C-alpha cells in the first residue's frame, strides 16, 4: 500500500515537472524561398561555432542556398585538423577553414583544395581588425617588439597566427625567435591571461573586446600590419568531389558567393544570426568586429602568407598553388 502511494506521488510529481519543462530545441518553422520545385540536395558543411559563421547561418535563413537547390547542414567541427579527414571520409562535402589547413594538405598531397574565399581580415585603412594580440595593462607590453621573450598564446600553432605575429615583431625591431608560442583555445585565453599563465594572447572577438574593454589593451593587429586583407577563412572541398560532381561544387560556390555578398551588405542580419546560434547576448554581438565576407581569393596575398610561413620555418616549403587552388 505504502509503495503504491509512493509510486503515485512520484508519478504525479513527474507529470507536473514535465509540464514546467521548456524545450530549447523545438524546431522553428523554416521558410524556404524556392520558386522551382527542383531537387533539393543536402550538403554537410563543417564550420566552427564562431562569430564568422554568422554569415552562413544568416544566409541559410534568408533562403539563399535554397534558391540553388541546396540544403545546408552545418557540422560544428573543431578546426582544420578534423575538417580534412572528414572531407576525405566523405562525411562532409565542404568545409570552412583557415588557409593553413589547405596549405598543409597541399604539401601532404591530400587533395583538399580551396574553391573560394569565405572571409578576409579588414584592409590596411580600417581602424581595427578582426583579431589582435592582447595583453594586460600590468604586463608592460605596449608594442610588438615587447613580445620578444614572452609567452604568447595562439589557438593553433603553426598557422597564420604565429606567422604574422613573428613578422610583426620582426618589423617592429624585436627578435621573433625568442617568443614562446603556446596553444590555448580562444575561449580559455582571457582566463589564462588574467591568471598570469600567459603574457599575451592572440584572440578574435568576443574575447578581444573582453580583454581590451577590461583590464587590458590591444598590442597589435598582426594581420593588419603584415598582410592586410588576408584571407581568414576559405571554402574547402575534396578534389574527388570536384571530379565526381562538378555541378554540385559549382552550385555551392555560386550560392556561397551570393550569400557572402548578401551578408557583407546585411551586417545586422549576421549579428542576429550570431545571437541566435551561439547564444551570445545581443550587446556583446553588437560589439563584434565582423570580417569582410567575400568569395574572391587574393592569390597574391595567400602567396605572401605562404612565403612568410616558409621564412619563419613554420612550413618546410611553399605549397604548390596549382594543387592548393581549384577556384570555381
Amino acid at each position, binding site marked *: 500500500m505504502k509503495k503504491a502511494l509512493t509510486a503515485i506521488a512520484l508519478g504525479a510529481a513527474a507529470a507536473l*515537472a514535465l509540464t*514546467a*519543462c*521548456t*524545450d*530549447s*530545441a523545438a524546431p522553428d518553422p523554416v521558410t524556404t524561398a524556392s520558386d522551382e520545385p527542383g531537387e533539393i540536395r543536402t550538403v554537410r558543411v*563543417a564550420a*566552427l*561555432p*564562431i562569430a564568422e559563421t554568422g554569415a552562413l547561418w544568416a544566409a541559410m535563413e534568408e533562403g539563399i542556398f535554397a534558391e540553388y537547390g541546396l540544403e545546408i547542414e552545418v*557540422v*560544428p*567541427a*573543431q578546426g582544420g*585538423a*578534423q575538417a580534412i*579527414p*572528414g572531407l*576525405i*571520409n*566523405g*562525411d*562532409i562535402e565542404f568545409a570552412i577553414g583557415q588557409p593553413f589547413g589547405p596549405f598543409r594538405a597541399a604539401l601532404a598531397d591530400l587533395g583538399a583544395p580551396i574553391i573560394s574565399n569565405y572571409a578576409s581580415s579588414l584592409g590596411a585603412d580600417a581602424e581595427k581588425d578582426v583579431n589582435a594580440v592582447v595583453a594586460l595593462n600590468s604586463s608592460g607590453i605596449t608594442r610588438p617588439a615587447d613580445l620578444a621573450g614572452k609567452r604568447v598564446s595562439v589557438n593553433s600553432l603553426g598557422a597564420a597566427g604565429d606567422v604574422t605575429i613573428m613578422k610583426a615583431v620582426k618589423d617592429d625591431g624585436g627578435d621573433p625567435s625568442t617568443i614562446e608560442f603556446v596553444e590555448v*583555445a*580562444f*575561449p*580559455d585565453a*582571457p*582566463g589564462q591571461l*588574467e*591568471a598570469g599563465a600567459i603574457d599575451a594572447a592572440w584572440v578574435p572577438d*568576443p*574575447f578581444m573586446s*573582453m580583454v581590451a574593454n577590461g583590464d587590458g589593451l590591444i598590442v597589435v593587429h598582426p594581420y593588419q600590419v603584415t598582410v592586410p586583407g588576408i584571407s581568414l577563412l576559405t571554402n574547402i572541398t575534396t578534389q574527388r568531389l570536384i571530379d565526381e560532381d562538378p555541378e554540385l561544387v559549382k552550385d555551392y560556390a555560386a550560392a556561397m558567393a551570393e550569400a557572402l555578398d548578401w551578408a557583407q551588405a546585411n551586417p545586422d542580419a549576421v549579428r542576429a544570426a550570431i545571437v541566435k546560434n*551561439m*547564444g*551570445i547576448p545581443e550587446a*556583446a554581438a553588437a560589439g563584434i568586429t565582423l570580417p569582410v565576407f567575400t568569395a574572391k581569393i587574393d592569390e597574391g596575398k595567400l602567396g605572401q602568407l605562404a612565403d612568410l610561413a616558409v621564412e619563419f620555418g613554420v612550413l618546410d616549403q611553399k605549397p604548390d598553388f596549382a594543387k592548393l587552388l581549384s577556384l570555381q
Partner: protein
Amino acid sequence: MTTASAPVPRLRSRRQTHGLRKLLLGIVGIAGFLLTWELIPLAKIVSPEYLPPASTVLGVLVTEFMDLEFWRNVGRTMTTWGVGLLIATVAATAIGTIVGLVPALRRFTHTTVEFLRPIPSVALIPLAILMFGFQMPAALLIVVYASFWQVFVQVLYGVADVDTVARDTARSFGLTRAERFRNLVLPTALPYIMTGVRLGAAVALILTVTAELLIAVPGIGRIIVFARSAGDVPTVYAYVVVAGLLGLIVNLVFRLVERRVLSWHQSVRGEDPA
C-alpha cells in the same frame, strides 16, 4: 556457533543505520566541496569571471534541468557511453579469457598489448574521423579503444589467479572444460572483472564527453564547446558538473551491481561484522 535468532533484527537495523550514516557522510563531503568552490572565486584566488561561484553554476543547472533538450543530450551521451562500454567489455572479456587461459598466447601478445595500451585515444581522433566522419561511430572508436584495455588487463589477471589446488581438484573430479570454466575460472576472475568494468565504465564516460568535446558529436560535450565559444562560462561549468554527476551515478550503480554479483566474495562479506 549456535544460530541465535536474537541477533538477526539487530543486524538489519545496523545495516540500516550504516546506510543512513553513509548517505549523510556523502552529503557532508559534497557540501564541503561546494563550500570550497563557493569560496575560491569569492576570495579572488581565481577571478569569478573564469571560475563562477558554485551558486551561479547551480542556478544555471536548475534552469537546464527544466529544458527537454538537456535531457535529450544526456540521453545521447549515455547511449554512446553504454554502447561503447558494452562493446569494450564483451570484447575484452572474450579476448582476455582466451589469451589469459593459454599461456603461450599470453606471452606472444604481451609486447603488442603493452605497446598499444598507452596510446591515447585522443591521438586517434583524426583516424576516427577519417573512418567514420563526424558520426557517433567515431566517438565510439575512441571510447571502445580506451575502455577495452581497462577491462582486458583485469580479465587477464583474474583468469590467471585461479587457485591451483582448486584447479587440480576440479580436474581430478573429472569436470569438463566448460564446467571448470563456469565453476572455477569465472568465480575467481569475477572480482577482477567487476573492478575492470567499473574502471572501464568511468573511462568510457570520460572519453565519451571528451570525444563529444573534440569531435562535436551530439551530446553534453558538444554543448560545452558551444558554451565555451560563446564565452558563456557558467553554462560550461554547469555541464561539467553534469558530467561529474553522471560519473558519480555510474559509479554508484556499478557499486550496487558489484555488491549483488559478488555478495559471496570476501571483500563484500568482510564488510559485515562476523
